[in-house]
């Protein structure tokens, strides 16, 4: 097994990996390699055939495959090296990367490693939905891959649990293909997907969205026969007596996405319990020097356009790292108040421009994001509405920042 040397190894050829590769190449880092486990590049976008991608980046609305193709074309034109059908099984803290491929075990030693592995879906087991285990229960992304890539129809009478964007998009997709989607149930008092998807995927097709509801029972021993749904109270506890049965042969789960960080953990990378992604600084660098992360492996995004720009910013820093073998220390923490779920980055230097990503815990109207250091307000952003479904990004200029104090982020109404 010959060990190959590379300046940068990029793990995953989805939107984040592709954008990072192009940016690194343009910054002069040409000895790089994208490792992709599928037979082709593009990642999850290959199955996201609906439109709405690329509005901020390309000022037009593209389907997922078209959005990906623009980056793939650039990778091909620049002749950026990539391999497909190779699964990374191991990353070490000294940046050795091992992959399994039909050609054998591939081993690389890199100056920098870029993590762009994306995310996975939360499953039935993770949320312990009670009942039997018949066929006909799919996560939204799995149903999407069967229908859009595999030409397999998953069912005829559908109930959807969770109001994530993919779930709503599948509600529309299934309806267009002749399935009857009975309702979308969401345990929270607010939707977890974007308002436009409620409008164009549910309302357009007369599919009800029931908030404060969950599934309390799954029925059927062979194929799914039905579900019981009930209202929940403010503590998300089922309210007895509100149970209602729905017959269905298919249950689609859209109950959240989890960054895919098994390889990161093995490399000794610290994860943030809130994002389930790596703790990173403003450079997208993890606690392991020279290992960077961007895209859904870092924080789950709602827009691919943001994934691309996040990956490009990270790639810019990774290119500097490869050239200088280090980056400025980021010793300041980003602190949040109780209305914020998380921020990315979690660490900053106070000496560099960066974009702060954050999500609010609950829907808020006419609110203000206030960013301060040592009690001194550095920036405020007024918002008509802030939704948990929409990631908020706030660009910050180094001129406004101090390199002496932690950054405090608060949202107030």
């Amino acid at each position, binding site marked *: 097994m010959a060990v190959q040397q590379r300046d940068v190894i990029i793990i995953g050829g989805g939107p984040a990996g592709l954008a990072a590769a192009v940016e690194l190449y343009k910054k002069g880092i040409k000895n790089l390699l994208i490792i992709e486990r599928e037979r082709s590049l593009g990642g999850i976008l290959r199955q996201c*055939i609906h439109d709405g991608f690329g509005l901020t980046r390309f000022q037009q609305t593209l389907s997922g*495959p078209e959005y990906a193709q623009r980056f793939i074309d650039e990778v091909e034109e620049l002749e950026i090296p990539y391999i497909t059908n190779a699964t990374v099984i191991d990353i070490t803290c000294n940046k050795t990367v091992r992959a399994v491929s039909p050609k054998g075990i591939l081993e690389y030693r890199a100056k920098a490693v870029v993590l762009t592995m994306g995310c996975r879906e939360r499953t039935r087991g993770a949320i312990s939905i009670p009942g039997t285990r018949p066929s006909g229960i799919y996560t939204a992304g799995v149903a999407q891959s069967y229908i859009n890539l595999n030409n397999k129809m998953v069912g005829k009478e559908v109930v959807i649990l969770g109001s994530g964007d993919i779930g709503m998009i599948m509600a529309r997709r299934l309806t*267009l293909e002749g399935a009857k989607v009975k309702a979308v149930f969401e345990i929270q008092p607010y939707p977890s997907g974007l308002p436009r998807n409620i409008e164009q995927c549910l309302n357009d097709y007369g599919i009800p969205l029931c908030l404060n509801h969950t599934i309390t029972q799954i029925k059927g021993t062979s194929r799914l026969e039905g579900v019981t749904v009930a209202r929940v109270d403010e503590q998300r506890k089922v309210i007895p007596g509100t149970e209602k049965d729905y017959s269905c042969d298919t249950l689609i789960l859209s109950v959240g996405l989890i960054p895919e960080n098994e390889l990161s953990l093995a490399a000794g990378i610290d994860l943030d319990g809130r994002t389930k992604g790596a703790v990173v600084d403003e450079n997208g660098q993890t606690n392991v020097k020279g290992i960077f992360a961007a895209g859904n492996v870092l924080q789950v995004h709602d827009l691919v356009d943001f994934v691309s720009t996040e990956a490009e910013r990270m790639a810019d820093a990774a290119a500097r790292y490869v050239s200088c073998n280090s980056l400025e220390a980021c010793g300041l923490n980003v602190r949040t108040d109780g209305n914020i779920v998380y921020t990315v980055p979690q660490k900053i230097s106070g000496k560099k421009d960066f974009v702060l990503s954050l999500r609010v815990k609950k829907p808020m109207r006419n609110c203000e994001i206030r960013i301060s250091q040592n009690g001194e307000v550095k920036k405020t952003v007024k918002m008509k509405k802030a939704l948990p479904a929409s990631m908020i990004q706030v660009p910050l200029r180094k001129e406004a920042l101090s390199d002496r104090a932690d950054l405090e982020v608060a949202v107030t109404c």
Partner: protein
Amino acid sequence: MLKEYTCILCPNGCEIKVQTEDEKVITIDGASCSKGEEYVRQELTDPQRNIASSVLVENGELPLASVRLDRMIPKDKIFDVMEEIKRVKLKAPVRAGQVAIRNVLNSGSSVIVTKNVKAI
């Protein structure tokens, strides 16, 4: 009459309120860009949507090629257009941008392929 809309043109999803009288627009409030106003005016008269689906590909490395419309169609034509899309069969290789159905149902919109599918 007061109507409320969620604009679907971009992820902002602006909540737009429209005041009408005898089907005439009096005020439009809540749109953060001019497209939002246009969207609402369109919704009031003739709602338009885009759809995405797949067509069968013969002899391809994938069984399906994804398609979408190159411009929106009236909302009430969605299922008619779906019937047309279901009838299409393409032969690999297929390229993104290729027209699968030109001017589908005389709507002025064409069904275009959005994915490359190589032949096997």
